[in-house]
């Protein structure tokens, strides 16, 4: 786009110089302002909206986190970094952080891998394509609460279907609500159930954009389907993979609904086996302590963690992407 508009802009002043004697009318001046300003005006709604609903809460939360602030009682004394120190000294916070990362890894990694695989299958020449493609999105339409209800029944320790099946083939019942890892696996499976289909469709859309002649060339070179997938499809999908990894990181670190609904108390288990950081935030702010100050501190800590992880993610995936960039760019131009 840029390269095509620049010459036009270059030509314009020279034209107007030729006609210099003409007075610069108001309408013309307006037109010039129009050219300069309107693009900014057109994109401003997003930034104005972001400032109101994104930036302001962020800064206000920082302000709250430096005060004693009761849910109902409201603003109290200024305490500086005390809330942050208090939170960082609480064992439950570190437990929550461990759980969050564990659930995040257990859900995001298989999610991305499975989504790519399913997308590759759906990309093949199938009968009733639309049916299968819409089908994978169905779980995403189901409300998280409903998913939790169904999975709660499946993962019930004694009466659950999964343990009944395991018992049938002679495996000891798994204590889904008592063991740390088992509870994380159960929760991750709910997350995966909902999000795999969603990510599959994103990958599928990207796959459809891969030029078909690449595959033809690969076939001519004698590549099998597997080789085509790894040497053509995956490299071409890199920008999409970055997008999916970043969004699922943000979502995964903020996970709340599924673990909260995993049992009837919503506290993350008797020993906080599956309490996540957002659940800890909620408990401090609205549950036992009603301390908005501390809850805001947790919110900011989580924000910083997500930012750091996001940057790490970005730099790693960008390096991977830039390795193959020249090749793929050349191909796309063709």
């Amino acid at each position: 786009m840029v390269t095509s508009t620049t010459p036009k802009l270059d030509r314009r002043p020279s034209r107007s110089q030729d006609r210099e004697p003409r007075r610069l009318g108001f309408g013309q001046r307006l037109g010039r302002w129009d050219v300069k300003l309107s693009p900014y005006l057109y994109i401003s709604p997003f930034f104005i909206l972001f400032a109101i609903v994104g930036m302001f809460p962020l800064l206000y939360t920082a302000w709250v986190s430096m005060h004693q602030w009761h849910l109902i009682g409201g603003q109290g004394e200024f305490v500086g970094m005390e809330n942050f120190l208090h939170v960082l000294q609480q064992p439950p916070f570190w437990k929550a952080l461990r759980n969050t990362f564990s659930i995040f890894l257990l859900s995001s990694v298989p999610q991305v891998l499975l989504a790519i695989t399913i997308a590759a299958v759906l990309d093949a020449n199938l009968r009733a394509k639309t049916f299968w493609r819409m089908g994978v999105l169905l779980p995403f339409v189901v409300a998280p609460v409903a998913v939790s209800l169904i999975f709660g029944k499946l993962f019930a320790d004694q009466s659950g279907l999964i343990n009944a099946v395991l018992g049938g083939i002679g495996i000891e019942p798994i204590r889904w609500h008592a063991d740390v890892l088992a509870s994380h696996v159960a929760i991750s499976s709910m997350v995966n159930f909902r999000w795999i289909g969603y990510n599959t469709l994103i990958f599928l859309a990207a796959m459809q954009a891969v030029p078909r002649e690449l595959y033809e060339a690969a076939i001519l070179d004698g590549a099998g389907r597997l080789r085509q997938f790894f040497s053509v499809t995956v490299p071409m999908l890199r920008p999409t993979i970055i997008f999916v990894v970043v969004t699922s990181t943000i979502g995964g670190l903020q996970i709340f609904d599924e673990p909260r609904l995993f049992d009837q108390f919503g506290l993350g288990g008797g020993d906080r086996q599956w309490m996540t950081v957002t659940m800890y935030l909620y408990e401090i702010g609205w549950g036992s302590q009603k301390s908005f100050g501390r809850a805001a501190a947790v919110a900011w800590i989580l924000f910083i963690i997500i930012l750091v992880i996001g940057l790490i993610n970005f730099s790693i995936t960008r390096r991977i992407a830039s390795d193959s960039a020249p090749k793929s760019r050349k191909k796309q131009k063709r």
Partner: protein
Amino acid sequence: MWAAAAGVTGIALLATACGSSDSGSGEPAADGDEQITLTIGTFNEFGYEELIPEYESLNPNIKIEHKKAATADEARANINTRLAAGSGLSDIEAVEVDWLPELLQYPDKFTDLTSDEVEGRWLDWKSAQATDPEGRLLGYGTDIGPEAIAYRADLLEAAGLPSDRESVAALFGGDDATWDKFFEVGKQYTAATGKPFYDSAGAIYQGMINQVEAAYEDPDTLEITAADSAEVKDIFTTVLNASTQDKLSAGFAQWSDDWQSAFQNDGFAVMLAPGWMLGVIEGNAEGVTGWDIADVFPGGGGNWGGAFLTVPTQTEHPEEAKALAAWLTAPEQQIKAFKSKGTFPSQVEALSSQDLLGQTNAFFNNAPTGEILANRAAAVTVTPFKGPNYFAVNDAMGSALTRVDVEKTDDIDTSWTKFVEAVKALG
């Protein structure tokens, strides 16, 4: 994090938007002409479905909107958030007794409901729970939870124990029933059948702690004393020993999926049953025969739960809301609610009403539930003190019991140590 962010933004935006209604109850009650809409927020089952249309037909100028939360916890979160925001509460909000004290810390947020008309309407201890230190009544009592023992007659019989109502009451010690006796019977049952006796350690603990006058906090200083209380620790240890060592507990968390399905496969023989629990049992144990209810409770009487109707000062119609709350909590209406959903009345007059006493329950082998629960209500002697931290401490205790009885990840001592830590973190 957006939850917190949204919450605090809410405060900021609303703080400017709404001037507090400091005029109090200046408005006169609308008589006839003015059309107004009142909202009422409840949770679980209050039994108001038929009462609301009745009130509307009695007062043609009033339309009532009923907002029902699924659980008491959900209602609590809603009230807390909207109190913090300064707007959005219903004209009448139902509040559960366990978290009422949290709200009583902010008496200015609720209308004083004292009036001659309702003087002496409730059991003394019921209205005392909703009265602030300055003597203002901030909530009208709805139901109470007098506890009896619900049991499976067929399972007791199979264990060679008596199974009819009177003999079971006698088995637990009749009027002198004690917890020791209760656990003793449990051991007999478990020895005979090899099966657990009751559903959950948490439930038995609830029954016992509700008989302790000041379990978690000092009534004078409001200091949290739970972690140092020998009495609390004793109950904790006793219940868990009976539950795990003597294997009397089926090891379920109440309301969990496992607990609900255990009703269908003879998971346990006995449950502590406050009035509102009868409907829960009937729902979960659909198709199971043999449930009955005995007019007895260990350690004297006990009350588990119960709610109040409050009128937040946010309302624009305090007088009309007060009138509706008073009508809903009047003895006649409360008996109708009991018939519809089993919420047992807290009104003195209702307790002696023939309408209530004559009530029987077909599911529980036609037990005279009205009479039994009225007897149980009369037997309540101790009203535990519940301060602003009661709910939070009891939550921590629930987790401590779960660790040992349900999840079996800790033994009694380590779980207690973790409980003490959790209570300290509240400060």
